[in-house]
C-alpha cells in the first residue's frame, strides 16, 4: 500500500511535467512517422506512388510503345516522356536521377530480329535502391518483350535443321512460326510459364503479401522509447534526493526495498502507457495518415506480456542508473548516450539482419536486442508465447540483475 502511495505521488509529479509528457509520448510518434520512411507516403491516398522514370523515346515505333506500356503495366515505375537533351541537362544539374533512352530504329531492330539496346542513364549519385528497382522492372519487361523474338528465332533455327525432312517445308513456314511465337507471347503476358509468388508465413501477424517499413519500425521504436523511460525514473530519484524529500521518505515506515519498488512502479506504468499510445497510433493513427497500420500480432496478449516485461526491465534499469549516476549530467547526458547507443546496437534503428553479421554476438548482451526480437516475433511474425519464451526469460534476467545491482549500489543517505 505504501509502495502504491509512493508510485501514485510520482505519477502525479510526472503528469504535471508537460515537457516529459511530450518527450515520452509525442517523440516516439514522430519517430514512427518521420524515421520509418513512412513520411513520404503520407497523404498519397490513391495518388500514383510509383517511381517516375523519364523516357526519351527517339524511336516512336510499335515496339517502343509496347516497351513503355509494359513498364507502366509492370508496377512500381511510372513512365513520363522527356526530350533527350533536356533529360541529360537535368541529370547534369542533379535535378534528375535517371532517364531511359530508346534509340531511333529500336522497333525496326526488334521486328527484324536484330539485337536492340535501350540506355538507362543515371546520375552517379542516383539512389541505388530506386535504380535497382527500375533496373529490375526494365529487365523483366525487356525479357518479356524479347520472348516472342526468341521463340521465333528458335523455331526458325529448328526449321533450318529440319530442312530436307519429308513435309518440313509445309510445317516450318515463316507465317506459322510467327503465329506460334505470337500466341505463346500473348499467353505468357497474361500468365507466365514460371511465376514467382511472394507471401508471408501463414502465422504472421500481417496478412499482406507486401511487407512494409512501418511493420518493423513500430516495434523497434517502441523498444527504444520504453528503455528511455529508465532515464525518467533515474531523474525522479535524483530530484527527490536533491530536494531532500528522499530523506523524508526514509524517515517514513517503508522498507528500502519497498521505497525502490515504489520508484520503479511509476516508470513501469509510464512504459505501459507509452506502449499503448505508440500501438494505438500504429494501429489507427497511421491509417488516418493514409499509411498501412500495424497489428498486435496473432496473439495480442503475448505482445502485451512482452511490453510488460520490457517495461519492467526498463524501470529496473532506471534504478540502476539512479544508483550509479551521481550528478544530473550523468543522468541526463551519459545515460542518454548509453540508452541511445544500446538502442542503436540492439537493432532499434539499424535492422538486426545488418547488425548481426557485423557485430557477431555483441547485440545479444544488450536487453534491447531481446526486446526487439520478442516484439518483432509477436507483432510482425505472429508467434506465440512459447516462441518468445527465451527472450522473455533473458529480459526478466536483465531486470533482476539491474534491480539487484541497483539496490546494492544505491546510496540511500
Amino acid at each position, binding site marked *: 500500500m505504501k509502495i502504491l502511495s509512493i508510485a501514485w505521488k510520482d505519477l502525479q509529479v510526472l503528469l504535471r511535467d508537460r*515537457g516529459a509528457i511530450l518527450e515520452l509520448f509525442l517523440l516516439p510518434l514522430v519517430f514512427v512517422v518521420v524515421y520509418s520512411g513512412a513520411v513520404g507516403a503520407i497523404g498519397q491516398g490513391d495518388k500514383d506512388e510509383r517511381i517516375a522514370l523519364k523516357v526519351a523515346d527517339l524511336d516512336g515505333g510499335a515496339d517502343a510503345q509496347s516497351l513503355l506500356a509494359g513498364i507502366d503495366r509492370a508496377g512500381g515505375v511510372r513512365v513520363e516522356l522527356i526530350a533527350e537533351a533536356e533529360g541529360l541537362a537535368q541529370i547534369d544539374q*542533379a535535378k534528375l536521377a535517371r532517364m531511359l533512352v530508346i534509340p531511333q530504329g529500336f522497333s525496326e531492330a526488334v521486328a527484324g530480329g536484330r539485337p536492340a539496346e535501350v540506355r538507362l542513364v543515371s*546520375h552517379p549519385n542516383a539512389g541505388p535502391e530506386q535504380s535497382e528497382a527500375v533496373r529490375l522492372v526494365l529487365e523483366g519487361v525487356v525479357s518479356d518483350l524479347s520472348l516472342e523474338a526468341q521463340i521465333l528465332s528458335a523455331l526458325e533455327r529448328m526449321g533450318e535443321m529440319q530442312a530436307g525432312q519429308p513435309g518440313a517445308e509445309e510445317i516450318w513456314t515463316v507465317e506459322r512460326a510467327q503465329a506460334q511465337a505470337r500466341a505463346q507471347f500473348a499467353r505468357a503476358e497474361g500468365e507466365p510459364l514460371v511465376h514467382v509468388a511472394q507471401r508471408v*508465413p501463414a502465422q504472421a501477424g500481417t496478412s499482406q503479401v507486401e511487407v512494409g517499413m512501418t511493420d518493423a519500425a513500430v516495434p523497434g521504436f517502441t523498444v527504444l522509447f520504453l528503455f528511455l523511460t529508465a532515464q525518467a525514473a533515474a531523474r525522479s530519484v535524483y530530484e527527490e534526493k536533491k530536494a531532500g524529500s528522499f530523506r523524508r521518505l526514509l524517515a517514513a515506515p517503508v522498507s528500502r526495498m519497498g521505497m525502490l519498488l515504489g520508484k520503479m512502479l511509476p516508470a513501469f506504468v509510464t512504459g505501459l502507457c507509452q506502449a499503448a499510445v505508440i500501438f494505438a497510433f500504429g494501429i489507427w493513427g497511421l491509417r488516418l495518415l493514409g499509411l498501412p497500420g500495424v497489428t498486435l500480432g496473432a496473439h495480442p496478449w503475448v505482445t502485451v506480456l512482452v511490453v510488460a516485461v520490457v517495461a519492467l526491465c526498463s524501470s529496473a534499469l532506471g534504478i540502476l542508473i539512479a544508483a550509479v549516476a551521481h550528478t544530473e549530467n550523468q543522468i541526463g547526458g551519459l545515460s542518454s548516450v548509453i540508452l541511445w547507443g544500446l538502442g542503436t546496437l540492439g537493432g532499434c534503428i539499424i*535492422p538486426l539482419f545488418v*547488425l548481426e553479421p557485423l557485430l557477431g554476438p555483441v547485440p545479444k548482451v544488450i536487453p534491447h536486442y531481446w526486446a526487439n526480437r520478442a516484439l*518483432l516475433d509477436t507483432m510482425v511474425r505472429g508467434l506465440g508465447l512459447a516462441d518468445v519464451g527465451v527472450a522473455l526469460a533473458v529480459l526478466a534476467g536483465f531486470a533482476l540483475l539491474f534491480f539487484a545491482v541497483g539496490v546494492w549500489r544505491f546510496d540511500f543517505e
Partner: protein
Amino acid sequence: MRAIKHALAIAWKELQLLSKDRGGLAVLFLLPLIVATTMGAANRAGARSDGEGILVNTCLVNQDAGIFGEQIAAAVESIPVLEVTRVPSAAEAEDIVARGEAVAAIVIPAGLSDQIHAYTPVQVEVIVDPGQPDAASIVTGIMNQVVDQVAIWGEVSYGIRAMLSQSEVLAQAEPNTLRAIEAQSLGTIMATLEQMRRTPAITVASETDEQVVVQGGFERYMAFGFAGMVVMFIFFGVTTSARSLRMEKETGTLRRLVAAPIPRGSVIAGTMLAYVVLGALQTGFLFLVGRLLFKMSLGNSAIGLLVHTLALSLAAAAMGVMIAALARSARQADSVALILGFVMGGLGGCIAMGMSPLTRSGGALQTLALLTPQGHGVEGFYRLMVEGSSLLRALPESAILVGFAAVFFLVGTWRFKYE
C-alpha cells in the same frame, strides 16, 4: 568595440560551463559518433564487392525431382549475396522464416519440371519474413531473374513441339527419326539460351552521366551519412543553448547581467557565439573521425566547409535563442528543442535513406526538406563533400542558412524578455 568584448567574455563563460557539462558533451560528441560509426560500419560491410558483404540467410526447398528444379537451386546457390541452406520440407522452411531465423524461403514445387515440359504454368513460392522487409525484397527480385531462363526453355520447347505436332509425317516416323528430332530440339533450345545469354534480343545498358565527377560509392555514402549526422546533432545543441538561456533567466543571473553595464545584445550574441564555436568543434571532430575510420571524402574546398559549418552553427544558435524566447520554462525549451530537432532533422534528410539528399527527392518530401535549415545544411555539405564542388556552388545553401539565422534571431530578440 566594448560590445564585442562583452560578447566574447559571455561566450567564454558559456564555453567554460559547457566544458564542465560532461553529459551534454557526451550527447553532442559521443552519441553522433556511436550512431554514425555503427551505420558506417554496417554500410561498409554491405558495400563490400568481394562477395563477403552482408549475406541474406535464405532457405531453399527443392521438391522437384526433375532437371529444372535443380537448375534453379544451383543458380540460387551461386548468388554471392545469398547464404543458402537447403531444407527438406516447405513446412520446415516456412517455420524457420516465421521464427525470423531466415529472411526468406524459396520453395520449388514438386513437379515443376514436368509442368514446364507440359507447358503448364507453375509457381515458385518465396516466403518472406515480414520482420525484415528490406532483405526480403532482395530475394524476391533475384528469384524473378533466376526463373526467367527456365521459362524461356519451356516456351521454346513447347513452340517446337507445337510446330512438330502439326506434321503428319511425324506421327508415322520411326524411333530413330524421333530421337534425331528430339536431339535437334534440344540443340535448338540450348543454342537459343546461349544466344540469349551472349546477345540478348534487347539489352538494358546502364550508364552513369560522365559529366558528373564523384567519389567512390562507399566514401560518397559516408560523406553523406556523416554530414547528415553532423547537421542533426548541431541542431541538438539547440536544446542546450535554449535551456542555458532559460536557466539564466530562472536562476536570476540574466537579471544581474542586464543590470551590469553590458549591452543586452551582447548577452545574446555572446551566448550564440559560444554555440557557433561548439557547432564548429562538433563538425571538425566528427569529420576527422569519419576521415580516419572510413576514409570519408571531405571534398576539395576547405574554405567552403568552414563557411558552411559556420553558417549552419549560426542558424542552430539563433534557433536556440528563438526557442528560449518563446518557451515558458527551461524544461519546456528543452523538450520543444528536442522534438523540433528530431522532426526537422528527419524532414531535412539528416538520416541518409538513399544516396542523395531529400532536397533532391522531388515531390512533397523535397518541399518539406527545403523548408528546414537541416535540409539546406545537408545539401551544402553534399555539394562540397560528395560532389567535390567549390565554395561558390555551396554558397547559396550557406546563404539560406544565414537567412534562417537572421529570421530566428529577429524573432528571438523581439520576443526575448530580459526581466
